[in-house]
Every structure is written in structure tokens, then in C-alpha cells.
């Protein structure tokens, strides 16, 4: 039987809070723009680096693949916080994404503009952010997202219910063993308590072979070549036809480096896989093609992160919980000001990455956390975040007094 791969890549960068001291609070409300070039929290420098190492070369390879293979399709999600930064510092990258989408063979997913965990704290704010993201995507790419991904592939029945009611045709999450049980992620599913929506589950083993293990010389399968990988996909049981490869876009060139051969792999894998009469589909195409085989009932929230596949990387300790609660507590008052720059700063502070940097789980996943953090410790991350939040709250208090 022929197989179909749904390749979906997540493109995101947060607005990192610069090392912001309490001595600046009340004087300078710039939390995002770090003018010291060697700071690890200099967002402009990070965008330039990632654009150079990942976005430009990867988009060039993807463009080439689309031109070479008419059967090649894939899906992307691009956050609002990244789009804003690319528009400021690397507008050519936006153009290269527009070119990909213009082929009609690249689908863009819906999500929150600010890569936030708003769904779990304020459904109204979540809806506003998804809407804001949709407007931005339509404006830049001329398409309307049909499939929803929530931040970090976080998912539960409530989210599926919301997405179904809101008219999305599909939603995606992690194909985690605890929810699958004996079942395989390589089928289409129907979320419990929904009417029409479909659920696609990440095949984490095959996805992580590329995203996490590709360059690992201690891995028994190293080096991973395109034909070996295509062979693995073809060797799956006959009835398992849908293979969901979901990963961070920055896998290509940033997490896995060019000199380890990741671009060669990307260049050759589609050809190897298509040789046997297989296909690549966007998520929407897969939903049209495959009928659901079963219902998935997932009352507890799962995500695609860490060995626990839950929200503990973001909300596992008291510092993280305090930080996120203090942010959402301000929702009503911040929105009531109507002050666009205040609202924007408040929303940027909702980005899940801020809470991730405060994570203190330093075991298996600690190395991953340390790699991505621009700060010297989770405690510093917490201090900078709260200093920015203090200043934001002071602005809010000043505004409230002004109106009285």
C-alpha cells in the first residue's frame, strides 16, 4: 500500500525580555530591544542568526523541492511574534515564505498570534489571539487557515470542542502513547464530543529521528540517510498509510546543523520517498483523503514537550505559575485602557517561552532547556520577567489614575 507523509513544520521566535533591571523599571519601558550586541537576549541578533542558518537556506531547499516534485506538499505554522520580527529585521524571509505559499501546495495553520497558553487561562483572550493571527496570515499570504495547532501542540477535549465549534476542519497534537494505548498514530482520528473535526497525531518516533537524533553520533542509526529513512516509512504495516512528521522548522540548520548534513537529507528525502509511488500531503488534504478509524478521548492536557508530554515545562514550578497568573490577572484592566502599546507588551509577555526559561527540571530535558535559554539561570529569567511586569503594572496604574 502507498503511504502519505504529512510534513508539518512550526516556525517561531519569541520576543525575549532583555536583561531588564528594577532600576530601569519606571524609567524605560523597552523590554524587548537589547542594544548590546553580545547579549544572548538580543532579539535582532537572534533573528539574523536564525535567518542565516535556517530560514533562508531551508526555504531555498523547500522552494527547489516544490519546483522539482509536483507531488510535494507540506504545512507550516508561523507565529505572529516571529512575523513581526522578520518584518523588522529580515523582510526577505517573509517574501520567501510568501513564494512557498503562492505555489498552492503549502498550507498554513491557525494558532495564537503570541504563541501563548491563553487557552488554559482565558478563552476570550485565546480567541482574540487566534483571530489576530488569522488576520495577519490572510494579509500576508492570502489564505485562511483551516487546521488549528495550539502552542506546543497542547491539546485536550475542550480545545477540540472549541475548534470544532469554530469551524476548523482539523486539529493536531502529539501521538503520545498514554492516549494512544494500543493504537497507532498513523491513522486519522475523530476527537471525542465533536461533530466534524479531525485529529492528526504526531508520529514522535519518526519525527524525532530527524528533529532530535539526526546529528547524534551515539545513536545506533547514525548517520541517518534519506534512503534509509524512506525505507523505514515504507516498512510500516500496510494499513498504516498516514505518517505525520511534525517538528520545529528550526530543525533545519539551527537545531541540526548544515555540516551534519541536514540540508542534504531534506533535499533527498522527498525524491527517495516519492520513488515508490508514495505522496506528500498537506494536513487539509490528508483530512479529505482519510476516514477516521476511531475516537480519541483526551480529557487531560497533553503537549509535545519533554518526556512527560505535559505542561510541566511551562507551569511545573511555583515561579512559572506565579508569572503566568500575574499576567492573566491583568487581562481586564489592561484591555480596558485601550492603550495599544500597553496591550501589545502585555500580550508579548504571554509567550510561552518566557515560562519555559524559568523551568527547573534539569534532568533529561534540562539540556534542551539550557540550549534554548538566553539567560544564565531560570531564576534570572524570572527576575527579568517580573521586572518587566512591574513596569507594565506601573504604566497600568498611571493610566487608571489618569482616567479617574
Amino acid at each position: 500500500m502507498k503511504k502519505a507523509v504529512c510534513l508539518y513544520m512550526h516556525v517561531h521566535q519569541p520576543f525575549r525580555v532583555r536583561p531588564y533591571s528594577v532600576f530601569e523599571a519606571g524609567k524605560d519601558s523597552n523590554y524587548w530591544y537589547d542594544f548590546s550586541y553580545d547579549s544572548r537576549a538580543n532579539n535582532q541578533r537572534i533573528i539574523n542568526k536564525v535567518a542565516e542558518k535556517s530560514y533562508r537556506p531551508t526555504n531555498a531547499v523547500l522552494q527547489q523541492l516544490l519546483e522539482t516534485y509536483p507531488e510535494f506538499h507540506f504545512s507550516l505554522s508561523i507565529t505572529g511574534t516571529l512575523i513581526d520580527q522578520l518584518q523588522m529585521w529580515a523582510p526577505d524571509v517573509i517574501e520567501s515564505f510568501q513564494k512557498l505559499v503562492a505555489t498552492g501546495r503549502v498550507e498554513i495553520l491557525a494558532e495564537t498570534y503570541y504563541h501563548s497558553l491563553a487557552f488554559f487561562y482565558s478563552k476570550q483572550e485565546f480567541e482574540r489571539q487566534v483571530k489576530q493571527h488569522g488576520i495577519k496570515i490572510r494579509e500576508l499570504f492570502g489564505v485562511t487557515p483551516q487546521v488549528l495547532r495550539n502552542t506546543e501542540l497542547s491539546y485536550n477535549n475542550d480545545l477540540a470542542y472549541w475548534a470544532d465549534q469554530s469551524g476548523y476542519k482539523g486539529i493536531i497534537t502529539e501521538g503520545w502513547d498514554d492516549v494512544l494505548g494500543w493504537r497507532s498514530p498513523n491513522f486519522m482520528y475523530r476527537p471525542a464530543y465533536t461533530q466534524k473535526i479531525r485529529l492528526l497525531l504526531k508520529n514522535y518516533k519518526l519525527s524525532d529521528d530527524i528533529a532530535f537524533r539526526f546529528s547524534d553520533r551515539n545513536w545506533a542509526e547514525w548517520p541517518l540517510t534519506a534512503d534509509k529513512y524512506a525505507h523505514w516509512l515504507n516498512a510500516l504495516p500496510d494499513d498504516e498509510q498516514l505518517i505525520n512528521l511534525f517538528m520545529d522548522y528550526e530543525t533545519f540548520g539551527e537545531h541540526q546543523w548544515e555540516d551534519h548534513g541536514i540540508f542534504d537529507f531534506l533535499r533527498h528525502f522527498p525524491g527517495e520517498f516519492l520513488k515508490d509511488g508514495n505522496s506528500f500531503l498537506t494536513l487539509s488534504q490528508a483530512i479529505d483523503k482519510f476516514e477516521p478509524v476511531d475516537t480519541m478521548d483526551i480529557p487531560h492536557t497533553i503537549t509535545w514537550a519533554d518526556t512527560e508530554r505535559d505542561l510541566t515545562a511551562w507551569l511545573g514550578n511555583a515561579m512559572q505559575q506565579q508569572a503566568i497568573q500575574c499576567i492573566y490577572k491583568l487581562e481586564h484592566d489592561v484591555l480596558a485602557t485601550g492603550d495599544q502599546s500597553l496591550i501589545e507588551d502585555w500580550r508579548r509577555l504571554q509567550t510561552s517561552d518566557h515560562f519555559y526559561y524559568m523551568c527547573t527540571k534539569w534532568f533529561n530535558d534540562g539540556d534542551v532547556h539550557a540550549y534554548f535559554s538566553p539567560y544564565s539561570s531560570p531564576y534570572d529569567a524570572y527576575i527579568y520577567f517580573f521586572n518587566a511586569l512591574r513596569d507594565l503594572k506601573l504604566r497600568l496604574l498611571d493610566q487608571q489614575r489618569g482616567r479617574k
Partner: protein
Amino acid sequence: MLGWELPPLNSGGLGVACYHLCRHLSEVGVNIDFVMPYKMPDGHNVNFMNIHSVNPTTISSEYFLGAYSGWSNELHKQQQAYKNTVEHLVKNNQYDVIHAHDWLTLQAGVHAKRLTGLPLVAHVHSTEFDRCANTSGNPFVHEIEYNCLLMADRIIAVSNATKNILIERYGLPADKIEVAYSAVDPAIFWQQNDFQNSYEYLRRMQTHGFKVVVSLGRLTIQKGLYFLLKAAQQAVSLQPKLLFLIVGDGELRDELIRLSAELGISENVIFTGFLRGKQWRDAYQIADMFVMSSVSEPYGLTALEAASADTAVLLSKQSGVSEVLHSTLQFDFWDTTKLADYIINVAEQPALKNSLAHNSKQEVNNLSWSNVARQISELYFNIVRQPA
């Protein structure tokens, strides 16, 4: 004079006390050779005595192993080198008295006394019992303290509380110990030539009715910050408009940050890290009240500095400075409910706050470094005239 610290190479009050003591001793005619583990950084303002440094290079203050940094091999090596330098000095120069401060320099002091027969004055700013908050502490450090204090001709304790520890826990004879209360140099708060406080955020929050509680000191078990945070939680539950500014750094930093989150008061607690100069001075001045929650504080210079900056002071009874600062609210360090009660009352009652500030300032003004210097120089003369 064997001291380990002088600003800016200092980790706490010891360096500050040595600086002022020596300056005033030199004014009453004492010639001082002061031994430091490192060369002082350029631009220091010590011109009233000779500084001899063990290591000919200087070091950034953030890598300086201060007198409170705890036992380590590196510190032990520095201590040995320090002893060698002192040996070299006493062999080649004529001195009348050796004056050593706290455990890091006491061994060198005893060594010099053995070589020369000169009288040794041991100045105790803190004991291992204080630093370890009355837990067992480091037996090596205890041993050094015990042996060297036994060998000393005279002992100066910074408070009666410290004197009592020396008598009760080290078994030292009371008549060998004299108490000299450190003072505060009022000039530190005159140096400000710009009037904008570094804490613009706190100033503006005060205009919104918030009150600022300041604590300043090393983040170690001795300072009892755990109890201050517990009290903060109780106080905030009744009076949310409180901001706690925690100035200082130390091995408990991460734990205290986590604790403030666990107590649910992240928004009310601000950690600044270690500060010097204007930012350090301004902390006293922006404060509506200053809290010293030490589990065991031989003296507590910061409380004097706060009072000198016209700030109301809340003080644990387990501190030596409570012997001289009476117009303060005093609590047992473990009594977090009492402390919370005091914090709320000072925050909400300007009359209470102002009278505490006014009266404690009077008390600070009664203390002076020149009195301390006179007292200690007399002690020098007595000891030289009639050797023990």
C-alpha cells in the same frame, strides 16, 4: 592591623567597619600597617594607613572571597599566604600591637604573636555560631576561633550579645572581653550630589500608595530572610500595597526566589543582587521601613545605616545592634506574625513610622567612630604598658 576586607573588596560589614575604625584610629595618632589578601583596585581612597597586599595583583570584587564566603581550599590557601606575608612584615618592622579581625586572620595574628611576643588584640565581628545561625557550623572554623581567642591578650566584641557568646560557648573569661559598638559614618548619606533616587519604580509606586520594605545583607541562613518572606506573605494578605526590596546576594538566592513564588508573593518581592555606591545608599532612602530579620547578628551595621538615613527600623531581638538602637520595633526572628503585624502598622501609620525614624536617628548620632577609636587606642596603651 590584620583585616581581610576593605571596600570595595568586601562582602559585608566587616570591611566597612575596618575602614572607618582605621581612619579614626589614624586621626588619634595610631600608625597602621593593614594587610589585605589582594592589592586594592586603583582609585581606592585609603591614604591614612599603609596597605600591604599578600597577592601583588588585584581582583574584581565579584571574585573576591570575602570573610563570609565559607570554608574552601582556595580560601585556606589564601589564609596560609596571608600568614606568610604577616610573618615577613613582623620580622622586618617594629610594631606595638597586633590587631586581628575574625577567624580568617586570627591564625596569622597568633603566629605573629608567637614570633614577636607582641600583644594580640582579637576583634570579633561575628562567630561561626552567628554565621551558621546557631547550627553546628564548621568544626575547623570553631577550632581556629577557640584556639586563637584563647591566645589573644584582649578581645573586642562588637556587642554584648557577641560577648555572651564568647563567654558561654567558647568559655572565654569575661574580663578579657571589651565591647566596642561600631558607629556609622553619617557622611555616606551626604555624598549624594544628584537628587534622583535610583529606584524610580519604587518612588512612583509610592505615589500609588505602596510602601517599601527594605532588607539589606548577604542572602545566607544567618540573615533570616526565610522568616522575612513568611512574614511578608502574612502582611501582604492584609495589606497588598507592600513591596519588599531584598538587596544582596548569597548562596540562598535561588532558594529565596523560589520561596517567594511558592508563597505567592512574586509581585511584591524584588531581588536586586549585590549593590554598591549610590544604588546601595538609595535603598535606605527609598525605604518606608528597614527590616533586619537575622537569626543571630553580632551587631548589624545595616540597621544603623538605615536609622541614619531617617528610616524606621524593625529589628530581630537576636541582634547586637538592638543594644544601642532602642527606638525600633523588635521581634524574635521566628515570630513572623509579630513581624507582619509591625510591618502593616508602620505601613499604615505615618505617626508611628515618623517617630521611629526620628528617635532612632538621635540614637545613631550618639554613636561615633571617633569614640570607638579613642576607646580602642586606650586599650592599646593599656596593653602595651602592662603586658598580659
